[in-house]
Each structure stands twice: as C-alpha cells, then as structure tokens.
C-alpha cells in the first residue's frame, strides 16, 4: 500500500510539473550543410542563455525550453520551419537566421502572427528596411559594412584596382554592391567585367584566369566562408598573392580549414560580430560554453546568446505587466522594442525599424597561425543605424 501511495505522490508531482506552462524560444540557423559549423554556434549560444534563464522562469511558474530548427541555409526549408514555428503556440520568439536570403522570406511568415525575431547575424539592409514590427537585429548592416570595408581597402590597403566577386545570394550580392559603390566613390576602379557572380563551389579556374589577366591589387568576395575557402586555396596554389577581402560571411574558423593557413593568411574581413576577445564580459560565457558544449565559442555564439536574452527579458517584462499570466506573442514583440539590455556585446536598444541603435563594425586580418582567436583587429568603428530611406 505504501508503495502505491509513493507512486501516486510521484505521479501527482509529475502532473503538477507538467502543468507548469511551457514557453519556448526557437532558433533557426543552418545546423547541417555547408555553413553548419557557424549555424551550430548560433544554436548553442541561444541554448546557453535559455539554460541560464530556466531557474528564473521556473520561479515565475513557467517551463522554458529551446526549440532548435535547421534551416539548412535554404530559403525553402527556412519558410517550412517558420510555418511549423508559428503553429507551435508555445514559441514566443525566434533567434535567427544566419543567411539573409533565408531570413527575409521566413520573417514574412513570422509576421503573420506577429512573432518576434531577433537576428544575431543577418546584415542585409532589407531585413529591417521593410519596417516590420516584429523583426529586429543586434548586428550591423551591409550598407554600412560594405562601405566600411571599401574605406579600409582603399585608404589603408591602398587598393586601386579591385576585382569583386559575389555568390549571387541576397547577402553576398548586396554586400558586394555596397562595397563596390563606396570603393568607386573613393577613387578605386571596379569595371563591369571585374564584378562577377558565381555559385560555383569547386572549380574557380575560369575566375582565377580572369584575375591573372586583370592583375588587381585586391579581390573582394561577398560570400560565405565555404565558397571563399576553396577559392582562396586555388588562388594560392596558382601563386597569386593578391589579398582577399570579405564580409562577415568569412567570419568562421572553418575558413582556415578549407583554405589552409597559408592561403588564408592573406585575408582581411569586416564583420558585424566582434571576435570573442573584444568582449571582456564574455569571458565567463566562453568558459561555460567550452564546458557545456566542448566547442570554442566564436563571435556569433555571443551574439546569439544576447539575442536570446533580449527575447527572454522582453518575455519577463511581458509576464510582469500581465500580472504573471502567460505572455502573448504580441506583448513580447512589443516589449522587445522597449528592451534596454546591457549584453555581452554591449548595450542593446532598437530603433523604430528594429536595427540596433549603434552597431560596431570590425576589420580583421586572418592570423598566419590559423588560430581564429588570434586574428588581429585592425579597426573598429561604431556607426548609428541608417534611417529609413524617405519614400
């Protein structure tokens, strides 16, 4: 009999526990495929934030969970996931994406139910220029990042003839066009036939032959590290020592693995996610990241952690203002715009269209040792988010 009572007590305990309402934060980033290494950083960063907040939410009477989705860096998959996300009533916010080309169509789906999205990495201007109430980002924009890269290239690296390549995605092409426009303004030459797009991932020989003929001082590549890595390797093998420059798509240690340290060493990149070393407050985060996941945290993990915390603190505010009731998606979305958070990456506050008010942009050079953490920061600028273009 005693046994039965025990079981009964245990069952009741389980039931009461299950009755605690569940709140979920979703992440959407590529967990498999070419940019899987970076997408995993985003997921793990958000996961750490959720794990840390779980005791706080338990006190408020909620069970907090992370729901990780793999968008495969593919717009179709991103949209399909987004549809699943909006149909899961427990999800009150999304951390993601990595690719702007995936984020733009997916965010249209979130907007249908006014579900908040906070992005750690999407830099295409259109993300926030659509002026949607639920879309936010805590990183910079390509219309600042591209020109910042151009200024560094022309003024510091003294590049006059530049060959520009892009990967034909919303991110890569947008970045390359912004770079090109500013570089030309500053007096560098980028003729039409030195501005090429390619989706090729293995055979870059026709491009490299054009570069041999054009003899540029600098090659700018708007794209993601998996593609640029193979390109840099083949360029180096053919004895071309022209430096390569790219955007935050290059910001992954996997670049060195694919290109090899020798080919990677001659690479500059701008990024919107500062390396972990520039955030003194991130020290504890980096240590617990290492312990919990066994991996080394890179910049985007810290940004994803902050994104998750933005949503979590907005959720807490929404719970409080509703007197302890479960927060609605509308309330959380509204509260995110009001968040003032002192995150690991700096102070986070959004402007009217969802851009972080002041974003940092970094110019780095890949270290010859191949250790991504040692990449030297050559320049840091803080730029306020551009206003919406007048219609």
């Amino acid at each position, binding site marked *: 009999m005693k046994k039965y009572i025990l079981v009964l007590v245990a069952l009741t305990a389980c039931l009461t526990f299950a009755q605690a309402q569940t709140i979920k934060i979703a992440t959407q980033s590529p967990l498999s495929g070419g940019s899987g290494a970076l997408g995993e950083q985003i997921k793990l960063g958000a996961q750490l934030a959720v794990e840390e907040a779980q005791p706080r939410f338990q006190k408020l009477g909620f069970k907090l969970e992370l729901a990780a989705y793999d968008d495969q860096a593919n717009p179709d998959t991103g949209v399909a996931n987004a549809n699943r996300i909006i149909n899961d009533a427990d999800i009150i916010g999304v951390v993601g994406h990595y690719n702007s080309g995936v984020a733009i169509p997916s965010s249209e789906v979130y907007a249908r139910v006014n579900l908040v999205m906070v992005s750690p990495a999407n830099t295409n201007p259109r993300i926030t220029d659509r002026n949607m109430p639920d879309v936010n980002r805590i990183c910079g924009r390509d219309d600042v990042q591209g020109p910042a890269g151009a200024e560094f290239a022309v003024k510091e690296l003294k590049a006059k003839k530049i060959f520009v390549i892009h990967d034909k995605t919303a991110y890569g092409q947008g970045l390359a066009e912004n770079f090109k426009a500013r570089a030309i303004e500053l007096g560098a030459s980028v003729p039409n036939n030195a501005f090429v797009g390619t989706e090729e991932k293995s055979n870059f*020989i026709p491009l490299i032959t054009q570069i041999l003929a054009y003899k540029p001082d600098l090659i700018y590549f708007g794209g993601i590290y998996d593609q640029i890595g193979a390109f840099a390797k083949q360029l180096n093998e053919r004895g071309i020592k022209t430096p390569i420059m790219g955007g935050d798509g290059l910001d992954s240690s996997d670049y060195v693995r694919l290109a090899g340290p020798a080919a990677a060493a001659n690479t500059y990149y701008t990024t919107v996610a500062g390396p972990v070393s520039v955030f003194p407050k991130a020290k504890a985060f980096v240590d617990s990241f290492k312990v919990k996941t066994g991996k080394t945290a890179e910049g985007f993990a810290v940004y994803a952690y902050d994104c998750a915390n933005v949503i979590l603190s907005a959720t807490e505010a929404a719970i409080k203002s509703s007197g302890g009731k479960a927060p609605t998606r509308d309330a959380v979305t509204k509260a995110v715009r009001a968040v003032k958070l002192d995150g690991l990456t700096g102070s986070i506050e959004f402007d009217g269209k969802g851009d972080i008010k002041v974003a940092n942009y970094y110019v780095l050079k890949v270290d010859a040792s191949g250790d991504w953490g040692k990449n030297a920061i050559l320049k840091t600028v803080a730029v306020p988010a551009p206003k919406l273009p007048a219609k």
Partner: protein
Amino acid sequence: MLDSLLSLLPQILFEGLLLGFVYAMIALGYTMVYGVLELINFAHSEIFMIGAVAGVEIFRSLSNIIHNGYLLLLVAIVVGGLVSGLVAIAMERFAYRPLRRRGTTNRLVPLITAVGVSFVLQDLVRLIEALWHNEFFLRMASVSDLEGSVTVLGIFIQYKSIVVIVVSLAMLAGLNLLVNKTRLGTAIRTVAQDMDTARLMGINPDRVVSSTFFIGGSLGGVAGVLFALQYTTISPYSGFLPGIKAFTAAVLGGIGNIPGAMVGGLVLGELETLAGTYLPTLTNGTIGTEYKDIIAFLVLILLLLFRPQGLLGQIVKEKV
C-alpha cells in the same frame, strides 16, 4: 584586359584539357552502362563523389604515414577506384537487377530508380561524414610534392595537374585495350549488342553487367580522386554538377560510344573553361562567368539538332 586574356590562351586551353579529362572519365561510366543496358545511370555522379570522398579520407588518414605524395596518391586512386567500383556493383545488384529480373520493359522505371539511388547515396555519405568528422565540406589535405609547379611555354603547370592528365590517359588507354582486346571486353560488346543471344552463346549477362558497372564505377571513382586533388574541396553534393556535365559529354560524343565519351568530355571541358573566362570580358560584364554552364548546354542543344547521334555516335537501328 582582353589582350592579356588572349595572351593567357594557352593556359586556359590547358585548364580546359584538365577539366575535360575528368569529364571524359566520368562520361565513360555513363556511356558503358548505357551501351550495355540502355540505362542512363544518374546515380553515377554519386559514384564519382564517393571516389572523391574516399580519396580525401585516404589523404587525411595516411598523409602522416606515407610521406611520398605520389605513393599516397597511388593508394588513394586504388582505394577510390575500388570503393566506387564496389558501390557501383552493389547498386546494380540491389537496385537495377531486381527490376531486370521482373522483366520491366518500361525504360522510365530504372531511370527513376537511378534518381532515387542518387539521393540515397548523397545523404548516406552526408550522414557518415557528419558522424565521423562532423564536416560537410571536406578538404583534400595538401601534400607538398604534388603542389610544386613548373612553367612550360608560359603555361603554369602544377605537378598534380600532370598527374591528372597522365592517370586519365592511362586509364582511357587501358579501357580501350580492355574493351577491344580481352575476352571480357568481347563479352561486354556482345551483351551490348544482344543480351539474349549472348546468353545463348554461353555468356552470363549478369556477370558481364556487374563487370561493366565495376569498370565504369572505378573509372568514376578515380576521376573523383583526381577532381578532389585538383579542386581541393568536396561535399556530398559535389557529384551532381560534374555528373550532369559528364552525362552531357557522353551525349555530345554519342552515347554508348567509348571514344565519343572521351572526345565529348574534352570538348565540353574546353568549352566551359573558355566561355567562363572570356564571356565577362567580351560582354563587358553583362554575361558573367556563371553562364559557362549554359553555354556548354547550348552547344549541346545545337549539336543535337544537326547531329542527333552525337559527334562520333552511329544511328542505331531498332533492335529486333
């Protein structure tokens, strides 16, 4: 820029030749299987990719043990060819032979099976690599004695490029000997002409078909190793584009015709490299490098309009 590009013409032709040999070796797999079974084995591009992945894994695991790059490459080629050949045999045994046994006469059925096998193999490799190394893009380890280079007549040539050409020439010559001079070759040609009559002559068609898949598959596997060596980055989906182009090459040369596949591969490799390099300059950037594939296919369409049997193919009379 056009002047300096023109002065690079020998270089561009050489690069086209390299690519062409890789295409030719893959195209042979398509053409041989088509010759015997009249089946377009779309999963052949995955056989090629599996060879490339095997080569990368050999380089990764043995480069610390075997320090001579050429020896290492030899091991990689043998293993890559063997693995691909065996996968091709297994594919034939478990996917195509049961269909043949049932007497399926509809050509579309094995074709759809081939597409399905292709997907299965892609994701299988992706799964294995994810569990084994947690990597999607695999990089061929650099071996210093293959990376050296010489400049001949203004053409920048890496040692590994020479290896690619020598190995593919040897394989192509070997295949020609095998098909034309050996008993197995005679059997393959017999089965290609008429499977039922071949059976009456005491040839076991299943065994011949298996051998054909093995030979075609190992050629594809070796091509994969060479491709990985030359272009360094490989993913489970890397097989698709080279595969579809090699298929084009096989059609261009006349499908079912072995010298045709070689010629088709070389023509396609040259066309693609030339178009990719010159188009942006000639059109002032309006038509970019990315149109190189379209140009290659455009040429195929035009050629087929005027010579439906391909460059070297013959018009085959309907089998009675």
